[in-house]
Every structure is written in structure tokens, then in C-alpha cells.
């Protein structure tokens, strides 16, 4: 039925964008509320909430433990990214060979991804116990992987890498399978070595996939909570007290919501900046891969 009324005709497009508007409000409302609370002295249970400006931020910026946690978070993210992209790429290259049984291997590789991270973390907690399988395999006696200051963070990286490397592998494998074959055929005809082909063809063409995977993994690693909480709870001492775990302790255990939310706002800023940088890399590498 034709819409005769000009007002209705003008209103219809707005009606159609309403769901998007609601969605935006739904996403932004908690964020803006969190931003507001980070500027207050909000404590769970306190009767009055007072606006205190940037005081929470000044307090956390002057705290050595905050900077230590931020440093640990950055280090954890960087290390997990390097490990997982490296291993994921290697896995994708291996699984890109059409040999007998490769379909089974491709199916098995995603098993860790199907496991809830908390369950995987608890499983690794048992494996890494002083009388666990890992010590048996490595020949170490009563070594506490998760209970030693220097080993706890690397141990968490092992768990994180075990869970999430398959994600990188799957994305990069999909990328490898979608690459055009003609340049490869030409390179082989010209006598290019496998390393030469990988360096000059595969890697540049695969860059957009690598950057998009790095983007997802960076965001996820910066927010890692479940693995740490299920295994070390930030200990021993503060050796695995990443920013998000610290904020959890500040909020739900110590009731200092204002302080915890200011930490989370800083983490959001870090994630936002990192995402913008990686999206920039991804866009540039996509253009290069398409020869633009």
C-alpha cells in the first residue's frame, strides 16, 4: 500500500533505524555509567556517591602496583601474541598440505577452543601441580609451575597459548586456502625456493589475516581473566596480578567500585588505541595484498 502521508514517508527510515539506536544506547549506557562512576568515590554499600573528578585516576597513576599490573598486562599480551601468531602460522602452514588424514588433524586442532577456558585452566592446574604430568614429562621434581614467582606468568602463557593458538591456526588456514594459486605456480616455474615463496608471496598475501587475528587476540589477551582467576588468583604475591584481576579484587572483594572502574577505563583506552593501530595495519596490508 503506497504511503501517502508525507510525514509517515519521512518517518519510516527513522523507524527502521530504531533497533540500531536501541542497540547503541544499550552498549553505550553501561559504558558511560562506568565512566561516570570512575569519577566518583563509589563504594559498594556506601550511602552517598560523591563526584571527585579525576582523583581516582591520580591515585592509581601514583600507585606502583597499578603500573606493575599494567606492565604485566602489556607483557602478557605481547608474549601471547608473538607465541600464538608464530605457532598458529606454523600450524596453518602444516595443515595446508593436502595429505592423507589432514581432515582429521584439522578437526582435532580446534578441540581446545571447544573447552571453556575455566575448565582448560583447571585441567592445566592439575597438569602443572608439583606431582603433575608436566613435572613427570620434564623430569622436574616437585616444581611448582603456578606457585613460583618467576614461573607463574610463563605458565599462564602456556595455558593461554594452548587454548587460543587453534583460533589463530583456523583463521590463518582459511586465509591460506583463499590465496590465489597463479602467483605460486609462476614462482615454482621460476625456481623459487619454499622459503623465498613464503617470504615474498605467502607472508605479504597473508598479512591482512594475520593482522585481523592479532586484533582479536590482542583484545582478548588484554581482557584475560578466567584463566588467571581459576589458577593463581593474581599470585604468588602479585606476580600474575594483571590489571583486570586487580580491578576485580578492588571491586567485588574490596568494594571500591570507583577505583576499579578507573582502572578498567585505562584498560579500555589501551584496548581502543591498540585496536585502532591494528585496524590501520590491517587496512594497509589489505590494500597492499590487493595491489592497490
Amino acid at each position, binding site marked *: 500500500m503506497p504511503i501517502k502521508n508525507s510525514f509517515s514517508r519521512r518517518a519510516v527510515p527513522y523507524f527502521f533505524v530504531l533497533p540500531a539506536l536501541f542497540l547503541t544506547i544499550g552498549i553505550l549506557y553501561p559504558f558511560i555509567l562506568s565512566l561516570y562512576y570512575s569519577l566518583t568515590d563509589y563504594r559498594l554499600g556506601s550511602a552517598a556517591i560523591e563526584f571527585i573528578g579525576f582523583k581516582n585516576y591520580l591515585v592509581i597513576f601514583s600507585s606502583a602496583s597499578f603500573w606493575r599490573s599494567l606492565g604485566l598486562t602489556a607483557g602478557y599480551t605481547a608474549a601471547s601474541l608473538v607465541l600464538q601468531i608464530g605457532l598458529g602460522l606454523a600450524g596453518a602452514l602444516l595443515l595446508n598440505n593436502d595429505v592423507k588424514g589432514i581432515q582429521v588433524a584439522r578437526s582435532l586442532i580446534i578441540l581446545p577452543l571447544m573447552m571453556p577456558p575455566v575448565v582448560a585452566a583447571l585441567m592445566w592446574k592439575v597438569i602443572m601441580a608439583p606431582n603433575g604430568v608436566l613435572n613427570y614429562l620434564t623430569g622436574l621434581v616437585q616444581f611448582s609451575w603456578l606457585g613460583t614467582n618467576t614461573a607463574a606468568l610463563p605458565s599462564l602463557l602456556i595455558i593461554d597459548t594452548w587454548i587460543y593458538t587453534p583460533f589463530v591456526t583456523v583463521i590463518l588456514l582459511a586465509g591460506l586456502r583463499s590465496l590465489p594459486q597463479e602467483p605460486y605456480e609462476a614462482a615454482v616455474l621460476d625456481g623459487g625456493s619454499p622459503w623465498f615463496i613464503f617470504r615474498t608471496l605467502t607472508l605479504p598475501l597473508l598479512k591482512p589475516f594475520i593482522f585481523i587475528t592479532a586484533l582479536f587476540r590482542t583484545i582478548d589477551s588484554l581482557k584475560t581473566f578466567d584463566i588467571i582467576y581459576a589458577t593463581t588468583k593474581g*599470585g604468588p*604475591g602479585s606476580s600474575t596480578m594483571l590489571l583486570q584481576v586487580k580491578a576485580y579484587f578492588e571491586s567485588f572483594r*574490596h568494594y571500591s567500585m570507583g577505583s576499579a572502574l578507573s582502572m578498567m577505563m585505562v584498560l579500555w583506552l589501551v584496548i581502543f588505541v591498540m585496536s585502532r593501530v591494528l585496524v590501520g595495519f590491517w587496512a594497509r596490508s589489505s590494500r597492499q595484498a590487493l595491489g592497490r
Partner: protein
Amino acid sequence: MNKSFHVCICLVLSLTFSCGKGSDSVPSAVQIRTPQGAFNWEACKGQSLYISLNKHPYTEALILEIPEFERLTGIKVDYNILAEEEYFEKLVINLSTRSRNLDIFMTGPQLNWGYIDSGWVEPLDTFLGDKAYLPEDYGIEDFYPSLLAANRWNKIPGKSNLGRGNLWAVPIQVETYIIAYRKDWARKANVSAPQNYRDFYAFARELNRAEQKRGIIARGLGTWPTINTGFITGFSSYGCVDFDEDMKCRINSPRAVEFTRLWIKTIKDFGPSDWPNITWYDGKQKFSSGEFGMYPDCDFFAASYENPAKSNVVGRVAYALPPAGPENNISSNLWSWCLAINSSSPRKVASWLFLLWATSRDQLLATAIRGNMNPTRKSVWEDPEVRNITDNWVGYREVVDKNLNAYAAVQWTPQKAFIAVGDRWAKALQEIWSGKDAQRALDEAAAEIEKIVANAYKK
């Protein structure tokens, strides 16, 4: 249109606020006594209660009895049970958002301090002060006085304020801290239970030598429960306090440092190599499996150690009082699971009825027989059926009796930032275990703890 719109909004709002679960407990509408003056258990018939429970032997026993309460009162009871950490997280969210759906929750004196100060807990003296609300056969004097004292607080920080003010919760289980040790290992090593903390170190060493297994296991996670059991029991017996009367943190006093060094050295030398990850249930499980020589922790773990379905060490464990300090004092800490009423609950009388029923002698006896040790009523502890269960646990009744009647009290100083203080203190212990100098670690922790408390109480 405007008018009809407003009418609609009013209708929606009135429906929203009137369709709560059950109805408000208006005391004037509640006939807590029948015309003949008898206690009226059916005073809130038709209401519904929602109870939040922590996974615990008490809970497992309680839920079997709930249909009995529903028959007695005509009140429907719904509940959820969560593992301890998830339980407390959800509880804090429910209480802090002033949820009207939650009526009763499980808590403990130390955790309650934060909740009480925030106004989340209903003071029970409102009911206890009115004889009409107390059945004649309830017998509040049957509870151990130390447990009722642990649940009274006047909201003022400082140790002398504990035991004063309102009663905030009714205890349903109590644990004190003792030494459970392998008597077969001790016999082999020719040593007896340690009488003081120098002996304590030597005892762990000898157990270690006797079996070539680790001599001691203790909690080690970087959170307050690590402090709450064997550690603070020894710390207090040693004559140390967390805060002095001026609320100055004293965990770094020379004597406190000396005790902390000794405790950590014992664990470092003869304890588990993954001590910072040891929770209470890890400790209980590992001791029950026969891997460790002693576990200075909860007395009631005896129920697990002596249960053939859960333990490899049945009949091979002995129970001893915690060692005495340099002045020959023993001061065990205590923790007591309790039931409290959410101050935002609109069904407070029905909630009170549940508390009365759940903490009655009959109910506490029924839960004790099903494994809820230790009972909080003297008559239940002395009941022949409970005696029958506990008499075979070597030395158990004797140490629990002594602890409950003479040595056990809350050793923490009441103040609302209890969790933050306990967590920070436990982190310091982990740092010392990892090699940091004890004086430095405790100085830093004490300074931070004072800031935490000051921040919690700032105007």
C-alpha cells in the same frame, strides 16, 4: 491521548510494584501469637522465601529438612546453592543492589562486618527483644556464648567493640583451629604433638624425616582465608594483634615478624612446593590422601579424615590443640557459619520464622548428625548421637571442648574493610615465602592496610 498515556503508565507502575514475590510483612497484620498465646508458626502462611546458600555440609543437610519447614509454616522456600567464591560474589551483588528478592543468606562474623556497616543486614535484636517473637522452647542460652558474642558488633572499629551492640546473625556451624597430624608418622618419628611454635617447626621436620613426605600443609592462596585459620591462631597465641586499640596496624611488630618468619619457614622447609595455590579444600584433600604429615586448620575436617569414602587416613589421625605462644597462651581463631536476614527483604517476619526453625535444637541436631560439624548449641554437641559420631576421633572432642570453652574467639579486629585487609596480609605472606624479607614485606603491607582502612572510613 496524553491522559490515557498517563493512565497506562500509572497502571504499569502500580502493577510492577505490587507484583512482588509474597507480600510485605506488616507486623500489625502478622499474628505471631494465637489468641491462646501460643507461638504461631503459621503467622506468615502463603508467603515465599528465597535463601542464598553456600555449598557446605550444613547446606546439604538443611535442604533435606526444608519440606518440614514448609509443612510447619505454610511458607514456600526457594534457594540457590553456590560454591564459596561465586556465592560471596553473588551475595555482595544482591545485597549492594538492595535486592528485595533475597530474604536469608549464609554469612560469617568477619564477612558480616562489611555488610553490617553498609546497612545490608537486619539487626536481630528487634525480634529477640520482643518475647512474642521467641518460642518458649527456643533456648538462646544453649548457644555457646563466644559464638553469640562473635555475631554482636556496634559498628565501631576496634577489638573491644566485638560482642557489643546488635546480634546480626545466628550461628549454625562453628570451626576452631587445631592441629590434625598423622599419629603413625609421629610414632615412627618418636615425637608428640607440638606444645609451642619452636616444637612446631621441629615436629614438621621430624614428620618429614619419618616418612620422606612433606611434614605440613597449610592454606596459601593470596586471600584472607590463608590468614584466618592456623596462621592467625598461632599469631594470636604468640601475643600478636592485627590492630592495636588506636587502629594502628601491628602485623609488622617485632614479635609479629618473628612469628611470621617461623610460620613461613616451616612451610617453606617442609610444606608443599605449590603453597601459594593451596586452598582449604586442596589442603583437606591432600592431607586425607596421606601426602602430608599435619594440617593446622579446621577442627571439623575430622569428619572427612575419618570418612572411609573420602579418606586414606581413617584411624591414623590424631587431633591436638594449637601450640602455645611464648607466654604459654593459646588463642584459637574461630569462624562460624551463620544465617542472617537481608535488611531489604520485605518478608522479615517470615525470614525470622525460618531462622528460628533452622537454628532450633532439633534442626541443628538433625544437620549435625548428617555431617554439619561442629554444632553451635551445647546440648547438640553433648547429644548421644553426636557423641557417638565423634568419640572415635582420637582427641577430637577434648580439643574442640577446650577450644570452644576456653581458647576460641574471633582474633581479627572488627572493621568494615576486613576482606581487603586480609587479602593484603595474605599477599605479604606469599611475598615472604617467595623470598622477600619478612620485615620489609610486613612493613609495606601494614602501611597499605592502614590506607585501606582509612579509605574505607573516610567521611
